[in-house]
């Protein structure tokens, strides 16, 4: 089932090193790139159907085309590698195992959108990853791929790595921009959208690491080769991070559109001996949970996930078996989003903390069914009332647990602590 497009060089010893990477085809697309018209590159990316791999799945080529024409301002590219969504660990593989694929992707994107300055916003906790990435960038400068005359062309490309300071919300694209500008990482109100007014007030494209890293393959092999994988509306491959209670957790590159349960069984080794499936988090902690029944029919693509009232998200699949205490999982979930709320908007700032305390109260055995109802209502009262979707990233999954596993909450209310252990 696995496909090696993005992960082609992941298992090659020393592929983060430019010499080794080049031996295996890195930077090979650049000769072709500079013979093309920038608009042509955008068209190929549009045709490939590549969707933003940060979680929202917005078509990448379409995003680029939102840049205003005839600009008197510089265009910035920000590569989002703030990978902080719980259960998501795909971008780190690219950063560590094939950083030159990312750099090559950056060069392609810069050429397509006429951008000279790129910022890679990297999660602050990625300390070893940032060293490898920076070393690769230094190599690319030394080899002439980056710099004043990038790739020997009359085209400057500078890449700057900006480390975050430990805020999940800085993965939200406008908070990311604020953070690069040296301000407190708080999302901006939109409009204006970054493509029109982004970094330092200039048009800015923000793409996920995996999105940018997909570009060399698309350019080298063509849009059709990429579309050969996946489904009609969810083309290509994705790095899936499968974690939780399976036999073989790990990072697997798969084409989009595969049946979820088949992947869990055949790729991730299935559940542990004697365990039954309780639920699946399909794409990072912020996506609504799927019940075993829903998991039967869902496939790993944007449309099927939407049909099942959840989201494809970041490809971070978490498998929950019958040992998982959903109430404690929800406590952990709200704890995270509460802790990471930037504190800007009233509903998120005050509401998530309130929800956390209510769940804790339920776990202490002091809750009532009223508290469960209140939790559900608070989800509605908070969601979509804020500048960004961080609050919704909490309330959407919490609502799904409350609706699909209400009996577990009621068990706490009725009889104090549940017999089940925490995850």
């Amino acid at each position, binding site marked *: 089932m696995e496909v090696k497009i993005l992960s082609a060089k992941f298992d090659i010893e020393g592929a983060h090193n430019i010499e080794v990477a080049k031996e295996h085809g890195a930077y090979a697309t650049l000769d072709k790139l500079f013979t093309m018209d920038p608009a042509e590159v955008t068209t190929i990316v549009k045709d490939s159907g590549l969707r933003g791999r940060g979680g929202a799945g917005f078509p990448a080529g379409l995003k680029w085309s939102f840049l205003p024409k005839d600009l008197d301002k510089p265009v910035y590219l920000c590569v989002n590698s703030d990978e902080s969504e719980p259960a998501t660990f795909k971008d780190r593989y690219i950063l560590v195992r094939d950083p030159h694929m990312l750099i090559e992707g950056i060069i392609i994107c810069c050429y397509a959108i006429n951008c000279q300055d790129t910022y890679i916003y990297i999660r602050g906790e990625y300390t070893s990853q940032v060293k490898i990435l920076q070393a690769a960038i230094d190599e690319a400068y030394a080899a002439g791929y980056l710099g004043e005359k990038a790739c020997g062309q009359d085209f400057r490309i500078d890449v700057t790595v900006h480390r975050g300071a430990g*805020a999940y*919300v800085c993965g939200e694209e406008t908070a990311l921009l604020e953070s690069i500008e040296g301000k*407190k990482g708080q999302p901006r*109100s939109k409009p204006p959208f970054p493509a029109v007014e982004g970094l330092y007030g200039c048009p800015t494209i923000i793409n996920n690491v995996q999105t940018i890293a997909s570009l060399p393959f698309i350019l080298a092999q063509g849009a059709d080769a990429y579309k050969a994988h996946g489904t009609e509306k969810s083309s290509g491959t994705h790095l899936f991070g499968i974690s939780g209670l399976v036999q073989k957790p790990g990072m697997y590159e798969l084409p989009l559109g595969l049946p979820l349960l088949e992947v869990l069984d055949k790729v991730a080794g299935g559940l542990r001996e004697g365990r039954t499936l309780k639920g699946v988090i399909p794409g990072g902690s912020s996506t609504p949970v799927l019940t075993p029944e829903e998991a039967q029919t869902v496939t790993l693509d944007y449309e099927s996930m939407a049909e099942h009232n959840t989201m494809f998200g970041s490809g971070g699949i978490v498998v929950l078996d019958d040992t998982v205490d959903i109430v404690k999982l929800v406590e952990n979930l709200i704890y995270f989003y*509460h*802790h*990471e*709320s*930037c*504190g*800007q*908007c*009233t*509903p998120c*700032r*005050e*509401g*998530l*903390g*309130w929800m956390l*305390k*209510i769940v*804790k*109260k339920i776990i202490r055995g002091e809750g009532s069914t009223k*508290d469960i109802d*209140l939790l559900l209502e608070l989800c509605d*009262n*908070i969601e*979509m*009332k*804020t*500048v960004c979707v961080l609050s919704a990233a909490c309330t959407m999954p919490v609502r799904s647990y409350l609706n699909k596993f209400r009996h577990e909450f009621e068990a706490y209310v009725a009889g104090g602590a549940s017999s089940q252990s925490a995850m």
Partner: protein
Amino acid sequence: MAEKIKLFVNGQEVEVESGKNLVDAIGAVGIEIPHLCYHPALGADGNCRMCLVGIEDGRPPLVPACKTRAVEGMKVQLDTDKIRKIQRDVMEFELVNHPVDCPVCDQAGECKLQDYYMQYDGQKSRMSVPQVRKAKHLDFGCGVIHDQERCILCARCVRFTRMITKTGELGIVNRTDYARVTIFPGRPLANRYALNVVDLCPVGAMTSQDFRFKQRAWFLTKSKSICHGCAKGCNIFIDHNREKYKDDIIYRFRPRLNEQINGYFMCDEGRMSYKLENEQRLTKPVLNGKVADFGTTVEGIRRALSQAQKMLFVVSPNCSLEEMRAIQQFAASQNATLSGYSDGYIKQGDGDDYLIQDDKSANRAGLELLGIDSSKTGFETAVAEADLLISFQNDLTRTLGAEACNQLKERMVLISIGSHEDSLTQMAAIMLPVASYSEKDGTIVNADRILQRYAVAVEKNAPPVTLIQAVAQLGGEITSLESAWDDLNTVVAGLNKVDFAQIPEQGLALTDSEVSNVAA
């Protein structure tokens, strides 16, 4: 006038000014969109979420009104179940961690949280878990006390120090419900406008060290006036209260919006100058070192005037135009030299490029308008010959120093007609107390030559005699404001078309020669 556009609010067509956001545009026609973080002087921030409104057929369908421009034909949904629920929910979130200590909070009575709770919320608390505890009674400097538990993190104060004073002492640290407004360690507020954050704070998180616990807001009478602290003439509210069996006392000044002059703000020095209206006030006339009644003292001054050979009248640059004219007329009738010499009221280099002026007097432009000589040489020539000097509220010790004034006292009869006890009134052989600006009507011209009227704000138990009345009793021809206005209209070329009774609230700019507010 700005261009008008038509849009719909709750299905009803309204005509509003274009180019404004929905809060201001719709607010101007009397439809309130509740908001906490938005302030016209600080722009939209969009953090409180209280101003969320629906836009029919809009993308997105739910927008913060403060960040949304009014557009022709827009269909704004405000009075719908959905929006009312959002307002109620946001208020609930604002209050979950709020101490609700209204009984001991200075903001009570003028608190947005209280007002909005009554208007948009009204439900019982559903909070059954412990609240977030934060710090209280933090001294932020400049007389500003902060209570983090009452704070709703609207960031108005933070934006004020960044956008208006550009000093940036305040910031919000931490995330989520641990977020709080604070200063940098050891770096308190240090700007001359800091107390504006107390007014800006929509709740009781920022209180004034000076005002807190003195009065409940609802007991205060809020009278419009003009600050006399410097030549800017900032528009203010005088908040005062006459408690039972006591005299009327002023408790604070607050800035009053005047786009043409001070905008929404005022300086701390001007704000704290309210104390001068309460303290060191002259109440009892003094004749030759002894307290005397008013009539006897007036007689004493008249006698001194009749005996004098060369008289010098010195008028204060704080006097109103009407008072200046009355004194000018009286001086002419008495053949006295009139001087407005008052260089001591100017603190060279003290002003800034915002509101604060070097000139600490309120109506120096009035002296110029009436052609009253304020020069040092003019004063020195006159004082050398004089054997009698009357100071009309002009504390000459500020200009000449106490020593020089003491020497004057030895050579001539020194008479002081003033409202406040100062070094000169203490030296004067005869002293007559009169009203200060909060107790009378008048007209002044500020440094930018804007004519402004102010009216009686405070009614004392024993109303002091006004300067015009005092001058009239001494023999002046001008006996009232109205007679002063008639005189000003005829005597001062620049004012002959000014209807003093009709000076607009925003003031009348005297910049062009043909200034007129008389209906054609």
